[in-house]
Structures are given as C-alpha cells and as structure tokens.
C-alpha cells in the first residue's frame, strides 16, 4: 500500500509539473490567435488535441502560410510518440475498458515521465492521474488566458509575436540537442526544409523533414542492432523483436 505521505508527495509533484506547463499554455494561446485561429478554435485545440508540441506544430504551419491540412499531418506525425508512451504505461497502469479510454487522453510527455519511475502500480496510477489532470486543467486555463491576451494585442508582427513562434519551437527542441545524432538530424531537417521552401507548397517542407527522421534512424541503426539480441539485461522482459 502507498502511505498517505508518499501519496501527497506524488500529487504535489504532479501539480508542480502542471503549473510549469501553464507557461507553455500562455505562449500557445497567444501564438495560435496570432496564426489566425479564433479564441474558440484555440481552446478547442487544447481541450481536444491536448499534446503540446503537436498543437504548436499545427498553428506554426498555418502561421507560415501552410494549408491547415499539412499542419494537421505534421501535428499527427509529432503525436506518434504518445503511442510509445502508451506502450510503456499500459502494463504499469493496467486499466481496461472505459478507464483506459479516458486515461488515453492524458497520455503525454509529462504524465508519462511522472508515472514510469514509480515503484508500484498504485504509485504509478497516482502519478499519472495527478500529473495528467493538473496539466490538463492548467494547460487549458493558460491557453484561454494566452488567447485572450493575444487577441487584445492585435497584429502579431508589431509585437514580434511571429518571432515568438520560432523561439517556442527551439525551446521545445533544445533539450534533445544534447545528443549527437539528434543534432545531425536537426541540421539535415533545417537544410532540407529551407531547400524545399521555394519549390513546394507551404507545409510540405516540414512534413518532408519527417523523412530525415526515417533516414537518420535507419543509417544510425547499427548502434542499436546489438540490443536486438534477446536476453540482454537492458531489454524489457518478453522483448521479442522479430
């Protein structure tokens, strides 16, 4: 059983993470309105899509003149990582039916990070729910606040709000640039996107950069081949790879 003290600590940590993501929510709300989405559409994105980087991607593509559909496809490509989070969470949380369907909406970076490190199912569930609910509440409140502020500010270029979009993407990307292969992928993606901008429809260059992820993944896969040998210590139990 989980003691009350442990439970309180886990919940407190989850709420702290939720408050921290509020800052992202304000930026998202303001940027989304600057990109041409209404306040209602902006709030619908945070309520219904509820996965930050994908939401930023959709409004970012639209802000740079891309078709809303290319924005949606880019957002969906970015959201595939939530599937992998779900795979790790499923045996830990072990929910079925309606609970699983409801929990799925809360599968994001933060709730996963605050759940997979726990030592028992009980703690994992508390960490997942506390973080997921806190982030959901504050992300949506902050989105509304940011959207209303963005609307009051008016023309985005006057205040440099358009420059804020690039900075927001860079800040989301920054922690991942410590890895050498990731830096290579980043450089190639930038180069490919800029080469394609003059010759393709807006939105296509970003989608095409997804191919860089495929290419770099395949080319550097020798690094991970060794882990494909079954029975190694670092594999999860039951790691069948063929």
């Amino acid at each position, binding site marked *: 059983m989980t003691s009350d003290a442990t439970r309180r600590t886990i919940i407190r940590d989850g709420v702290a993470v939720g408050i921290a993501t509020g800052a992202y929510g304000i930026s998202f709300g303001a940027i989304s309105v600057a990109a041409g989405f209404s306040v209602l559409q902006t709030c619908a994105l945070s309520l219904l899509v509820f996965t930050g980087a994908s939401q930023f991607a959709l409004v*970012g593509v639209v802000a740079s003149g891309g078709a809303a559909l290319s924005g949606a496809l880019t957002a969906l490509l970015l959201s595939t990582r939530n599937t992998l989070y779900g795979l790790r969470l499923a045996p830990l949380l072990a929910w079925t039916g309606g609970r699983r369907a409801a929990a799925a909406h809360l599968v994001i970076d933060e709730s996963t990070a605050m759940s997979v490190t726990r030592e028992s199912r009980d703690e994992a569930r508390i960490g997942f729910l506390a973080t997921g609910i806190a982030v959901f509440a504050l992300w949506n409140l902050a989105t509304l606040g940011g959207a209303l502020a963005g609307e009051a500010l008016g023309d985005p270029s006057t205040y440099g709000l358009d420059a804020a979009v690039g900075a927001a993407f860079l800040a989301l990307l920054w922690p991942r640039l410590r890895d050498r292969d990731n830096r290579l992928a980043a450089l190639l993606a930038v180069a490919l996107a800029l080469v394609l901008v003059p010759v393709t429809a807006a939105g296509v260059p970003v989608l095409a950069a997804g191919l860089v992820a495929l290419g770099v993944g395949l080319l550097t896969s020798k690094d991970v081949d060794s882990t494909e040998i079954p029975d190694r210590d670092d594999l999860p139990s039951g790691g069948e790879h063929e």
Partner: protein
Amino acid sequence: MMWAAIVLTAVGAYLFKLAGLSIPGAVLEHPLVHRIADLMPVALLSALVAVQVFTDGPELALDARAAGLAVAVVALLLRAPFIVVVLVAALTAGILRML
C-alpha cells in the same frame, strides 16, 4: 478548413494515444521504431524553426525574426525558463521593427 484540421488532429492524436495503451507491446517494441520515434520530433521541430524564422512565403528571408531567434539561443544557453525565451525573442523582433 480550420475546424476540419482541428477535428482531424484531435481524433488522430487521441487514437495514437489509445493505440499505445491498447495494442500488445511486442508489435512496436522494435528498437528501430523507438529510434525513429525519438528522431521524429527533433526533425519536425527543427524544420519548423527554420520555416518559421527564415522564410517569407515561398522565399528565404533574413529579418528581425532571426535576431529574435539569436537572442532566444542566448536565453536557452543561460537556462532561462520557456516563457522568458519566448518573450525575449518577441521583444527583440518587436523593438528592431520599431527602430
């Protein structure tokens, strides 16, 4: 069109989340799948930065947004929080345009 994109993204994003909780783990446990999934946000976010900052319609451009991005890099190197990074980039571009 905006609403269609919003609904498509919402439904798709939810199904990706639900799939992870529902399908047997072994199906997607190949290391290459994880590798590409890790690289995907890096490639897409990098391309988004480039397109957002260095293009104007179908043309390449170098303007106040690039200065904003440079200041954002400095803020990130100084470990500034997200909201500060975004604000200093916006302020830099805004001030440069007023000059």
